[in-house]
Structure formats: C-alpha cells, structure tokens
C-alpha cells in the first residue's frame, strides 16, 4: 500500500501546497508517496505531478493505495477522479472560503468555491476518514456528518523561515527609507482578508492618532477587481504611507517581518492562518479579529478584537500595541510560548499517529 496526496491546484508559496509537501516528508518515511494536482504552477512542476500521472503508477492498478485529498477549493476534475477510483480516500480539510466574499468581484471564482462546498458534501460518503487542520474545521466537518474526523495540525516550520537571511536590499530600504512604526499585513489581498478595513483603520491612525505610522500589505492580489478597489481606496484617502507590495520572495518577506512593529490580521475567514505563527517566530506582536479558526491559532498571544467592523477600535488597538511596552512584551512572550504548541516535530508525530489509526 502506498499513500498519495491530491490537490486541486498547486503553486509554490501556497499554504495548502506547503502542507502537502510537509506531509509528504512524513509519508516518504513510510513508503513511496507523491503529490498529484489538477492545476500546476510552473514553479512547482518538479515537485508535484499532474493528476493523470497517478493512473500509470504500477500500484494504482492494485486499488490498495490510500489517497489523501486536500480540500480548500472546488475541482470537478479531482472530485470526479477520486469518486471513480477504487482506493480508500481520506480528506484533509483546510476549509473553503465562503463564496459571498468573492461574489461581487469574481463571480467565476465564487462559483468554484460553491462547487468546493458541494464536493465537500459529496465526498462525505466516499471518504473513510477526514483530517481537519484546526478544531474549527473539525466542527464544520462534523456538522456535515463526516465520520471519523480527527484533528491533524498543519506541519508548519516557522523557524525555517526565521532562519532565512533577509534580503539586504529590502532590509536597507525598510530601515533607511521608511521612518515611523511599521504595521504589517501578510497574506493575499483578497476580500475575506479585509485589507480595506485595515486601510480604513490606518486612515484613522494616520490622520488622528499616529501620523508617522506606516503600513505594508505584503502579498499578491489575485482578484483584480478587488485589488484595484483597495489600491484606489488608499489613493483616494491619500494614504501615501500605505504600501501594497504585491508578491515578494521569502527573503523579502523576512525583511518585512524583521522591520515590523505589529502584525495585523483583519481576516474574516481562515482555516488556520500561518502568518500568525510566523509573526510569533519573529517576535512581532499580533492584532487580529476573532473570526473562524483565528482564535484557536493565536490563543492568548494576540489582541483579539470582536467580530464587528470597527476601524476606530482597530486603530486604537494598533496604537495601544505600539505605545504600550508592557503589552507588547507580554504578547511577544505569549507568542513564544504559543509557538511551542505548533512545533513541527509535534505536528509530524500527530500526523503519523492519525495515519496509523486509519491505515
């Protein structure tokens, strides 16, 4: 028996692809293990195989392999492929962003997300078990009637990122060209992550509370209509100290983390949210909102704001973290302690243990 993983789409830097790569390290200690994906970015093509390649594996004929499907968006191709196969299938659930966030900007992608929800329901009868990467995800699977749901934390090695040498050009730029405290937003500029809310709060901060503050939104904006709207919003509010950087390399991301004074996550939907742990590893205090899996990921190591949209409260919270040394130090210390619960070795062991329970 071999264990292989399946994705709808794979690209380098993508959290779901990364988690499959980390799982593969563990799986390869057991036996041959590959990752297959319907869509493949050029950058990942050597690591991940196309979906069709699975059928030509000599062991695919036996029907005895175990197939793990990472579910985060819809893919008719992967779902129908798995429904056709004889092998046992397990789901790794990363959560699916509700389509309502995307509907006004990209109806096609919103449809893909709806498909994902339908597939999640469809796979219930096909899956022999399901791994959820957070308790939040586990609750959702259980409410859908999934049997045998177990919690399998993502294997995240934030220390690996922390060990990368920061890009010297970017570091020098951030140190010498950007004065004032730096507020950092890490993640894609997408509707459910609400960078617009952070911009509104930043307007309040910049105009009334902390004129010297700066904000950087580090991450690509793959939904053009939303990305354009966010950019225009910053321009119309005349927020010259806000910077939407677009996609950056890891070395540059590290430079941002090292220069940052606070990380703000305005997201309203996350299945786990890796940047929260990254900020903890770089000893950057976190301000977040109590949505979805975020409270479970940060624990007490963040200023956790209630769900309501309130740019004034968000601005006040950011100012508090920047001004209040005691609070900042306590958040950093709690972050350090929190990080211990997500040690990659612990997560690897948990994954291996869950696997043993199902094979």
């Amino acid at each position: 028996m071999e264990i292989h993983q399946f994705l709808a789409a794979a690209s380098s830097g993508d959290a779901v692809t990364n988690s499959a790569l980390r799982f593969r390290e563990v799986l390869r200690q057991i036996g041959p293990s590959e990752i297959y994906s319907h869509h493949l970015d050029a950058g990942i093509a050597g690591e991940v195989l196309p979906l069709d390649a699975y059928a030509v594996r000599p062991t695919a004929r036996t029907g005895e392999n175990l197939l793990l499907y990472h579910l985060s968006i819809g893919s008719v191709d992967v779902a129908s492929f798995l429904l056709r196969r004889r092998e046992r299938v397990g789901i790794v659930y990363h959560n699916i962003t509700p389509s309502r966030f995307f509907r006004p900007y990209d109806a096609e992608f919103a449809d893909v997300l709806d498909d994902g929800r339908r597939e999640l329901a469809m796979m219930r009868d096909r899956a022999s078990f399901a791994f959820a990467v957070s308790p939040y995800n586990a609750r959702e699977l259980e409410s859908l009637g999934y049997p045998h749901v177990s919690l399998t934390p993502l294997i995240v090695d934030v220390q690996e990122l922390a060990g990368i040498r920061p890009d010297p050009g970017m570091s020098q730029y951030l140190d010498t060209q950007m004065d004032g405290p730096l507020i950092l937003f890490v993640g894609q500029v997408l509707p459910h992550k609400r960078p617009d809310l952070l911009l509104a709060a930043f307007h309040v901060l910049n105009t009334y509370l902390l004129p010297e503050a700066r904000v950087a939104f580090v991450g690509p904006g793959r939904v053009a209509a939303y990305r354009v709207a966010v950019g225009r919003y910053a321009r119309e509010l005349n927020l010259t100290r806000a910077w939407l950087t677009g996609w950056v390399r890891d070395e540059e991301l590290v430079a941002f983390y090292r220069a940052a004074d606070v990380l703000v996550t305005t997201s309203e939907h996350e299945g786990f949210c890796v940047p929260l742990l990254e900020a903890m590893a770089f000893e950057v205090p976190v301000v977040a909102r109590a949505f979805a899996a975020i409270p479970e990921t940060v624990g007490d190591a963040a200023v956790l704001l209630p769900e309501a949209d309130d740019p004034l409260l968000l601005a006040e919270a950011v100012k508090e973290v920047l001004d209040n040394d005691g609070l900042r130090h306590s958040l950093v210390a709690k972050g350090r302690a929190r990080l211990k619960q997500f040690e990659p070795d612990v997560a690897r062991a948990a994954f291996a243990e869950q696997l043993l329970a199902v094979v």
Partner: protein
Amino acid sequence: MTAPDDAHGRADELIERLRTRVQQRRDAGEYPQGLEADLDAHFQRIAGQRPGDLESVRAALVYLEGTMGFDPARIHTASNLRGGDLVHRGIAKAVSRQTEGVLEQVRVFAEAVRDTLQALLSAMEFPTTHEHAELIEQVDTIVERIASFERVDSGAPVEIEVLRRRIEELEAAEARREFHPWFSNQRFEDAFRGTAEDLQKRYEDLAREFVGVGGPVIDIGCGRGEFLELLRDLDVDAFGVELDPELVRADIDRGLVVEHGDGLLRLAAETDGSLGGIVLIQVVEHLSAQQVADLVQLAAEKLISGGRIVVETVNPQSLYVFAHSFFVDPTHAWPVHPAYLDFLFREAGFKEVLMRWRGLPDEEESLDELPEEGKEAENENIRRLNRLIFGPQDYAIVAVR
C-alpha cells in the same frame, strides 16, 4: 500560570479599555461625525464601480444621435377632452415663436453635448491621453522596488560582468571540446567494431557474469545493443542507456529496452543498492579522469550486495593498441590503466576484483623467435618485445560488490 478564564477576563478588559478610549475621543470631538460610516461608504462606492466598455459608450452615442430631431411638429397636440385638440393647436400656434426659440436652444445644447461626448470617446480610445490610475499605482510600486535595489551599493554589475565573461570563456572551451560528426555512429560502429555476431561471440563470457545477480542490469553506452541481446538470451533483466538517438531507435526497433540519455546521470538517479549489475563496454576510455573515479564510487553505491560490474576497455599496456585501434575513435579521451582501475575498485570497497585479458593480436603479427640454437638471450628479448608490443588489446575488470 494564569487560568484561561483569567486570561480571557484580562483580554476582555483590554478591549473594554480600548472601546472606552474610542468613545472618549469621539466625545472630545477628535473624530468627525459619522467617520466609520463615511469610510465604509467610500470603499463600497469604489468597490461598486465597474469599468464601462467603449462599445456601450458608442452605442449610447448612436442612440443620442437618433433622439436629436428637434421639431415643434413632434410635440403632441392630441387630447382626451372634447375640443381639447383644437385648444392645444391654438395655444401651440400662439406660442410657436417661443417654442422655436426654446427648441433652438435645446438643439444647440444637445449638439454641444454630443460633440463633448464624441471628443471624450476618442480620448478614451487612446489610452495614452488619459490616466489609468490602477496601472499608475502598479508602476509606482515597481519603481519603488527597483529604487530599493538601486540603493544597495553592492558593485553587483561588475561582478556580473566578470561572471558573464567567465561563462563565455567556458562555453567556448566546451565548444572546442565537443565533437558533432556529420557521419552516423551506426556506420562508424559497423566499420570499426565488427559485426553483431563477432561481438556477441566476443562478449558471451562477460554476459554470463550477470546470470542470477538478483537485480536489474544497466548497460551504459549500450551502442548497437549486442550485449543487451546476450543478456536477454540468458533471461537477465536488463536495460540500456545510449547517448546517440539513432542507435537508441535502432535498439528499440529490435525490441530492446533502451533509454536515450547520459548513462552516468541515469546511474546517479537510480536508488542506492538497487542494481544487480552494471555494464560498461568500451566506455571508460571516453570519460574524464574525474568521471572515471566518480563512476566507480557511484557503482559501489548503486549495486546490491553481490551485484557485479563489468568494465571492458582498451589496454594501454599493449603498444599494438595505439598503432591499431585507440586513435581510430576521435572521441577517445584517455586510456585507463588496468592497475589504476583495479586500485579504484578495491578502494571503493568491492569484495572481489578480477582481471580478464582479452583480444590477443594474431600470432602472425608478433615477432618470430630465432630458430637457431644458442640464441636464447636474443629470443628472450624478442619475447619481451612481443609482450610489450603485442599484449592483449583489451582487458575487462569484473568487480563484485
């Protein structure tokens, strides 16, 4: 350690404190009335904007043209009241001068509107004449990032220039070293290596070394596939790797399992301890010193315990070889001395290393001994010369892992 409830309590307290501070600022008039609502409405307005397309603007202009026939006759005078029509017509006639005047003003205005819209449309059709705000913003970001790189004074351009020159030199040297003949390797082998039957007879003994090795055998540089055929006849699981695509095609046509590519790279890609055997017939004399040394080490890694490697090559201890065969092949790099190869295999940890001398030149070619009595000293010299000049043309090392 703090109990979770306590921690929650303190977190709630912090949020409450922040809320109070917001309220205090609000009460003190630090924030304008309705700030959050304004900010939200502002974003919603931007998010709701969708760029129109030129086609729909053009269609609207055509419609506008169609509505521009201003004429008092188009003003209805019909009425539902009895005699109403008459009254309307009467009034219309009475104010016809004024109506004409108003219509004239409307006409002038409408034409001005149309001309303005047309001017606007033609401006929109040439994107350089108006600003694409989002593009400008993206360009700003790019310029900003380029500037950040320019600020770093690392002297990189000079280093890159040095590297570029070095790469050019190396490429030129590599090009001088490479050999791309216009003739076919198949024809070359036919002309100088002998017929397939000759070769099969010659290699039968070496092929038998692989019977029962307990793993697949790789034939590196398998050429025309004679050795693979011998292995197939002996029921040995084997495949070949060959650089020349023409030879690969011919091998495949004959039903052999042969891949196109660099055999050494292919060997490196094999799983450690997975191969039953490795065949290198007349290959190592084509390799660099580094490649030969690396090859032996690689073989030690890839073979299973008890696996075998056969390396056959020209014997530089026989001077006959240099006069007859070695320089016939322009791609020969350097002969490999049997003592050196024997040393390499022993150093790499092979359990057994056997030397097989092969291909003694015809006896007629060697120097005859003197038939007369008492010429023992001269004959001994002749025998020495024969050994030196007419020694075996090839040797094979059979090494067991």
